[in-house]
């Protein structure tokens, strides 16, 4: 099962941020722009890292920002943000982070297929550095194996 179409609004390339909070906010902004979440969800994603630490940096250079399902999640969504300058999240092995994925799901169960497909994509170790170096939305989509939504074609 491929990942769902990725709207242009859910992608931000070469974003300038000061720190990990800025990086997670950028991933949250992209989820908000694409209609998946409201701003409260962005704050909750930051809260998860405040509470549990930088475990969301799950591979070298990659953070998977996320929080629990809630009323601030309108539809399941994924966002992709690449950073102009990598930032530290405080992870002992995988810092600095240059790619932030924002993940929002509406229930604890429905996301399993989406996440399994993400695992498929990122089992290729070249994908993270290639995403970090990508300069346009079509390259990002090609690396993830996704299309644009029908209304953008």
């Amino acid at each position: 099962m491929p990942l769902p179409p990725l709207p242009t609004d859910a992608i931000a390339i070469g974003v300038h941020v000061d720190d990990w909070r800025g990086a997670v906010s950028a991933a949250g902004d992209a989820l908000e722009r694409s209609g998946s979440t409201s701003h409260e969800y962005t704050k909750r994603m930051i809260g998860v890292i405040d509470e549990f630490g930088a475990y969301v940096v799950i591979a070298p250079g990659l953070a998977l920002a996320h929080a629990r399902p809630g009323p601030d999640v309108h539809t399941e969504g994924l966002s992709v943000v690449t950073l102009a300058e990598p930032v530290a999240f405080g992870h002992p092995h995988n810092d600095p982070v240059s790619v932030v994925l924002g993940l929002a799901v509406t229930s604890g169960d429905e996301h399993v297929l989406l996440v399994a497909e993400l695992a498929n994509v990122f089992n290729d170790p070249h994908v993270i550095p290639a995403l970090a170096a990508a300069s346009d939305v079509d390259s990002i989509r090609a690396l993830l194996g996704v299309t644009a939504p029908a209304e953008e074609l």
Partner: protein
Amino acid sequence: MKIVALCGVGIGTSAILKVNAERALARLEIEADVTATDVAGVQKVGFDAQVILTSSELVDAIGKTNADVIVIENYFDVDELVAKLETALG
């Protein structure tokens, strides 16, 4: 055998860890149930687990356990999971 994949909120990262742990176990030809859970649920879900997989950041949150706690650095690196599971279970 029961293996627990732990993350802060029980979705997202623990699910990725679960998917890749299942791939590693298949490669090792080991039969096991892998359950994703969160910090709040790990004592309940993990009480009879042989192995808890997680990030170094969350080790202290597990508390007292009889399970082997395995720290995974790269959640997408199935080779790392195979090597660490083989050491723990072999």
